[in-house]
């Protein structure tokens, strides 16, 4: 059964990505695996940059995680990253740091939703 839309993961967005790129099942699984491999590192870069008061690096990491997450349907995570990106761009790193636990939780939810689509067991 196909997963239902949720805040953590909207499968309709991934279906749109498949259609937009003309992906078959194997290519879709490859893309999801690539995202699952990359996203934790992006979060780690974001956390490290925020801890070091490096607003440009925090903005870049949030931007990249936002873009990747949005195209896979991890919409809650993408929305949080968009907030963090805007806060970092405005130099408001203390406020950005307050959102990092929510980013971490949203990433965990997105990973749990996407792993089955990559052929991985959660």
């Amino acid at each position, binding site marked *: 059964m196909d997963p239902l839309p949720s805040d953590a993961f909207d499968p309709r967005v991934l279906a749109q990505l498949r259609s937009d790129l*003309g992906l078959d099942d194997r*290519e879709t699984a490859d893309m999801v695996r*690539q995202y699952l491999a990359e996203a934790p590192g992006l979060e780690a870069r974001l956390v490290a940059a925020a801890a070091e008061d490096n607003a440009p*690096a925090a903005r*870049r990491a949030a931007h*990249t995680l*936002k*873009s*990747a997450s949005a*195209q896979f349907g991890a919409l809650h995570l993408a929305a949080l990253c968009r907030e963090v990106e805007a806060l970092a761009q405005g130099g408001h790193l203390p406020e950005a740091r307050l959102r990092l636990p929510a980013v971490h939780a949203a990433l965990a939810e997105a990973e749990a939703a996407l792993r089955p689509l990559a052929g991985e067991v959660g």
Partner: protein
Amino acid sequence: MRFLLVDDSATSRLALATALRNATQGRAEVREAADAKGAEAAFAEAKPDVVLLDMVLDETQGGGGLELLRTLLAAHPGARVILVTSLPPGHPDIVKALAQGAFAHLTKPIRTDAVRRVLQELDVEAGRVGHIR
């Protein structure tokens, strides 16, 4: 057809490479770089026909996207550079990049039909890549 993809996200590079291969029926030769330093080295080695350039790069690794655009076009005035960005059309950075010599821009998330359209504009898909230097 030789392409150089410059994007700090491996996921975005994979999406773009897939779109390029589908848009060219598998005829695309794709090189990748994650930052400006890597892009300059890959460009010198591979002499790509087209560079697809994300505008948000790690500025500590040789500069951001706009800076790399200027560097590439200064060193290779005939280079064809297509911006790839999640910024909205008309954003000042896009306008600036187009004014500096970028050929076109693609909006993320990438669509194969949009890639195909830009390639047609470049004559690449028609196999006339030799005219594009």
